[in-house]
């Protein structure tokens, strides 16, 4: 794969992966914060 083409292709895939990981991490933190706020322990 040529260098500039690799930049575009991997730029697309890495951005996709980063967005998904960031969303899942944000959701996990939000859920943990709610549980702490409600005073819940893991069931």
């Amino acid at each position, binding site marked *: 794969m*040529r260098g500039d083409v690799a930049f575009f292709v991997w730029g697309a895939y890495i951005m996709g992966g980063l967005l998904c990981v960031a969303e899942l991490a944000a959701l996990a933190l939000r859920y943990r914060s709610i549980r702490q706020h409600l005073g819940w322990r893991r069931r």
Partner: protein
Amino acid sequence: MRPPAALRVTRAAVPLLLSAAVALCGVGLAIGFGLAPADIGRGSLFRIVYIHVPATWVALLLYSLLVFWSCVRLLTGMRLASMMVEALAPTGALFALLALWTGSLWSKGALDIWWDWDARRLADLTLLTFFVACTLMRQALDDSPRADMVAAALALLGAALLLFVLYSVELIPRVQTHPPERSDAMAGRLIAALAVVTAGFMAYAGAAVLKRLRCVLLERERASAWIEQWRTQ
């Protein structure tokens, strides 16, 4: 479905959907990068399609669901419908942003421009704008029935605009790249990779939306008596 039942469903479904998403995306990308050969005209740049097209389809699917639940909210006042609207919008924005970004990368690689006023690109931009607008509107007006109504109405306005933009694909002359040249075997692998990655993205979107629905449900219903009962079951 009542909120306690929704909480049970989300608890069971999220890990299953996430596992399915990882497996399906892995298989789809292996087909896209390994089995499917590079396009004759565009070479390896063509492999952006395996993420751009599924992202666009899933963004459109999520917007359709947003419109459906907005209609349910406006017509029936159902509480769970408002929560679905709130849960769907951020994940929809993620897929619309991914579609827009990969579309720009494709344009830059193929035509040496980051942006063209193509109707498909405009449709991605419209989707992103209304997903973000629904999310921000919900937060700007705080936790109130009025915020739910405004977000639902905004989703319907976006749907009208989106239909206009998609219809305009036929009307606006677009920048033409040369038509792709591929054999039947290549076309088969292309469709297989697109189908598998789309299924993976749908599974991921389902997991993220249900996880957020769980958060929204607990935040909104924290003062309800059923929450305490559910917790001690």
